[in-house]
């Protein structure tokens, strides 16, 4: 089971809670203030932080799916 992370860019407003919860997975784009998933983020990390990040998004812009 791998975790797929999708960011709804229309909803994201750069609150940055995801960056605080999982700094090696999420960052904000300096041009747009919108969150993105860091390329090649560690695959072996625990999913807890990512789930926490999704839960802590004030506008629920982080969608997680397992495949």
């Amino acid at each position, binding site marked *: 089971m791998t975790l797929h992370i999708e960011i709804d860019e229309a909803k994201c*407003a*750069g*609150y*940055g*809670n995801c*960056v*605080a919860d999982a*700094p090696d997975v999420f*960052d*904000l*784009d*300096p041009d747009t*203030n919108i969150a993105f998933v860091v390329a090649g983020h560690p695959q072996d990390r625990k999913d*807890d932080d990512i*789930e*926490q990040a999704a*839960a*802590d998004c*004030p506008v629920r812009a982080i969608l997680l799916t397992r495949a």
Partner: protein
Amino acid sequence: MTDRRRVLIVGASVAGVRVAQALRTRGFAGPIALVDADEQWPHDRPGVSKDALADAADDALHLLTPDDLERLDVSLHRGVAAIGLDTRGRTLGTTAGNFAYDDLVLATGSAPRRLPALEGRDNVHYLRTLRDAERLRAGLDAGGRVVVIGGGFIGGEVASAARRRGLPVDMLEGSDRLIARAVPPPVSDDLARRHRAHGVDLRLGALVADVDASPTRVRAVVLATGETVPGEHFVVGVGAGPDTGWLDGSGVATGNGIRCDGTLRVEGVDVDGVWAVGDAAEWLNPRYGVRHRVEHWTTAREQAAHVAASIAAGTAVPFAAVPYVWSDQHDVRLQHVGDPDLTDVGVEVERSDAGRVLYRYYREGAVVGATGFNAQVAIARVRRDLLAPI
């Protein structure tokens, strides 16, 4: 077994609901009950003074759906107020009878401080719940001059919403600068300039001394200077405090809030298995070595997740928080992060061509906090660095 323990959560706002969710995420399989004094469906509060004043998309503010609740296997008791606590018998007394628990989480929040002189009038507003927002929205829809008493985050957001509708706004702040407890003077000045640029008639050092009112309506407030400020709507945002009166005699220690140790365990006489989270929790934050309450959404969630993990694991470890808050006022997102005490910091300001402004706070050469106006990226980085393990 830990998992057979019954968890009872008092308060179904962001902190209480998050405890329930995080318990399940952590694999806790025991019964969870959530009681809340409010009849309204559990809802999120940041939007009450933001989106809910702009339009009626109230469903979007619900913290969870009935389906979510069923999936979480949490029993929700709405309109049930806590009225007493027997910590030895591990029983919560409520308006709907007694609830037994093994772990009790107090997430009772805070209520707006009220101004007695204005009490009971139809055109006086406080802002805490969706119902408050609906009522204020209806008032703003009718038009007329808005007098905002208190220049804090709530007052600033209400003033913005009213200006966006083109209504005239007076903002009365008792202190000589805005959000003085949170930020250094240059940031207060910056925020004040922004309000004035958006047409808010801001008065600093403006203390309400008297009121000109009929039994049903306030016509004007009278300032200590003698100046009269008339209006159609009076919105009071002068801070909030937790209601801990119902805990008197329970053995639970209360002061400015519900007193907790560094792990968010409630202190007191014969108090065991009781935790507090959110606005009401006055805990010893090991990050700063101070006992304080933090009324921020993000901190409430962090505390909730922390306590849920402690209950699920049967442990208690210190909870260190770096406070973070945002506020949407006029055309800016204001964000503030870091040390709750900025009285002795150096301030550096950085302005970008795109209109982003970042104030960084230093102590002994190290960044201890920052405030940004539309500086989301910079704030996220400061926050990340402050949170990084040393």
